[in-house]
């Protein structure tokens, strides 16, 4: 790899800058979201719906809601910049605090699912591409066709039925931990890591047991697109001219498949993996609802259904930030894996 550290950092900075318009777009969107919603924002930010008229007026003035819209937008951007996302009506806490408490739950679920999906889909895709037309290939294609058709909320519920109700393997599918189990001290917020750090393997196993079904549910949904793109891109690369060159030079099959084909084929997979991660953030909403998982998505959903809009706004913003971060990571990985992009 000739890409020096300096070039990579420069690239990262450029990408960050170029995602600024997207972030600003989301900010303006969430601002408008608040303003066009039925009802008066001042009511939300006052002590509650029962607040007196005078109090609401005071809040309105204090929040600057009597100012012209552009000025309000600027104030809003300032608030977001300082981490003030408002207060949730349902929990009564600042949205920022709620989100920070719940984010690890969502991330732990998403990462676990991504790990499961990647470790299954990439080998499957490669196997299918190496033997096109074989039984493995047909199996993978069938799996891909079926996988994208089953909605996460259905597959999640069916998994609960089979593994909890019928077989009794899985624990009660509600939340991250059994109600009677003791939570580990909050170090990272990721239960598996916290339990491991404190050496509480009993707790670790309990947390893992809770995690398996929702993570598998989410993974099932994204295995199909990942395996599909791996297979397609591997097939395309295996049919390309430079693989023929490698064969004409007598390179070993392992070297052709791994060094020549796979390293090229992984590039489109990387791009799709970023989109897949995004999809999973969206699918979080459904999976967290099915498994009563105490993450940010179910928090936002509950708020949305009870017309409590500050958490929704905070949630959308959080998603935008994660999305920018994920894209940045994918982009940097891509830059490392493909020398051609560092030129343009």
């Amino acid at each position: 790899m000739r890409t020096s550290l300096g070039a990579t950092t420069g690239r990262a900075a450029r990408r960050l800058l170029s995602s600024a318009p997207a972030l600003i777009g989301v900010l303006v969107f969430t601002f408008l979201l608040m303003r066009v919603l039925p009802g008066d924002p001042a009511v939300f930010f006052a002590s509650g719906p029962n607040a007196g008229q005078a109090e609401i007026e005071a809040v309105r003035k204090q929040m600057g809601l009597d100012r012209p819209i552009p000025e309000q937008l600027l104030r809003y951007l300032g608030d977001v910049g300082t981490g003030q996302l408002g207060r949730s009506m349902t929990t009564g806490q600042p949205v920022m605090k709620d989100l920070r408490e719940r984010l690890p739950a969502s991330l732990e679920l998403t990462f676990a699912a991504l790990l499961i999906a990647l470790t299954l889909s990439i080998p499957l895709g490669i196997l299918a591409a190496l033997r096109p037309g074989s039984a493995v290939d047909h199996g993978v294609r069938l799996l891909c066709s079926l996988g994208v058709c089953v909605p996460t909320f259905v597959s999640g519920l069916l998994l609960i039925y089979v593994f909890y109700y019928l077989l009794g393997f899985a624990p009660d599918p509600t939340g991250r931990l059994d109600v009677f189990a003791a939570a580990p001290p909050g170090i990272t917020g990721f239960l598996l890591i916290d339990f491991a750090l404190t050496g509480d393997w009993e707790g670790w196993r309990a947390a893992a047991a809770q995690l398996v079904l929702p993570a598998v549910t989410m993974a099932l949904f994204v295995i199909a697109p990942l395996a599909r793109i791996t297979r397609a891109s591997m097939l395309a690369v295996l049919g390309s001219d430079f693989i023929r060159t490698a064969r004409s030079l007598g390179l070993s099959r392992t070297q052709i498949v791994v060094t020549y084909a796979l390293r090229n084929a992984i590039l489109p997979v990387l791009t799709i993996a970023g989109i897949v991660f995004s999809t999973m953030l969206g699918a979080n909403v459904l999976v967290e609802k099915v498994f009563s998982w105490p993450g940010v998505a179910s928090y936002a959903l509950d708020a949305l259904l009870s017309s409590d809009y500050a958490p929704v706004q905070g949630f959308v913003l959080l998603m935008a930030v994660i999305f920018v971060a994920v894209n940045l990571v994918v982009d940097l990985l891509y830059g490392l894996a493909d020398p051609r992009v560092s030129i343009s």
Partner: protein
Amino acid sequence: MSPLLRIENLSVTFATRAGPIEALRGIDLTVGAGQTLGIVGESGSGKSVTAFATTRLLDRAGRIAGGRILFKGQDVSRLSGKEMQALHGAAISMIFQNPRAALNPIRTVGLQLADALRAHRDLSAAAARARALDLLKAVLIRDPERRLDAYPHELSGGMCQRVMIALAVACEPALLIADEPTTGLDVTTQKTVMDLLARIAAERGMAMILITHDLGLAAKYCGRVVVMERGRLVEEAAPGRLFAHPQHAYTKRLVAASPTPNSTLADLVGETRPAGSGIPAAPHPAPPRGTALLLEVQDLVKRYGNAAAVDGISLRMRPGESLGLVGESGSGKSTTSRLICRLIDPSEGTILFDGQSIGDVPARDFHRSELRRAIQIVFQDPNDSLNPRFSAFDSIAQPLKRLTGLRGAALRARVMESAERSGLGPDLIDRFPHQLSGGQKARIGIARAIAVRPRFLILDEPTAALDVSVQAMILHLLDLLRREDDLAFLFVSHDLNVVRMMCERTIVLQNGRVVEEGASETLFARPQSAYARELLAAIPHFDPGAPLAATA
């Protein structure tokens, strides 16, 4: 002693959706150690299939249906994958068309060379790198130390092909098969690459099979040439004899259709009339002096960003005149043709057509101009110059409807007339592009352009994608139409021989500028500029009757 390679009665079939297709129907050929064999033929003749069958690199769909391929007495077609792997690179190597695609895009040149070396030799990484450096030096790559760490996209097409040569000869194979190694490269690059390839093969005593559609190339670099047609081998001889006295009817046609420095259009289509009758050797009588100019282009510039594709070109044409525009890729010849055709807007300069300034009419609005009818264009690749959803009739009729307002029976009559004049039978008129051959599509492109009765026709490499026998007929047709309609031609081409036959005057372009201009006869006989001389010298000639230029 048995020859290095002996192919006996080889047949290959391809499984397609429409059923099996016989690509090779029993061919026999031999190559001795150190010999150079040329395989020539037009598309579909099976010349590349022969190469891929010999190296066992056929697509999945292709299968060796019969015959033997004996390499050093061993039947290659019966070898296992492992045994074949040991032969690849070490005993038989290949060089491919499209060198850029043939190299791994995300691996450095040095590592790819090292891979090739270490596939057959027990070398440390450092030793392999040192050896790779030697190889880069051997293929005359400038600054080889730095190029070791370069990726293919950082090299030019010619350099990529040199790297490919280095890869192929890395383990000193006894047989090198080059499949159209210079197709797509400019003529000067082609010469350096071919000279290098011939020298390396000679120095290392390698036998070489050169597969090409270019008879000149085969004549110049091969000791023996075989001609293939539709999966069969039709003739085999030393190039001098083959091209001077072709025996087989197909070889005769092929040789006749290939332009040479002295050929005329009549020669190409094999018209054997006595001199003085039929088509004159001089393409067209020069227009009388003093006629008003048809086209006058002054200081034309087209910039894309900071780079100028066209950098101050001026030219003049009289009615009925034919002007050739030649140059290598990047010379700006295609951009110039599109500027004059008013498909794109110039950055600077004036274009006067028939005394009217058309350069300042935006290309966006030129379709409404009176002169749209007068200036028409024929495009390069017949495959993508026709709307896939239009029948031949629609393709010809659409511009007529737009530009002349013809409708109904009159429209149909004009379409049929243009088609007929372009040599397109009435039975083909309702076909769609995918049901037509390349030559037929080229004829539709011509019919479409002449249907509106233009006065000025731009031809942008009209035959570059066609086989030589088809090219000969199309060139002949164009010349005939020009004579009948008194059309002016701006003929854009990279093929100097073709331009010489088609045009009275020629302009040579390099990097968007005119480097030389003059009457075609003089320019080709006594080029003044160094660049034009270099271009002319780079064309591989085969000269019936003349001694061989080079022998392997």
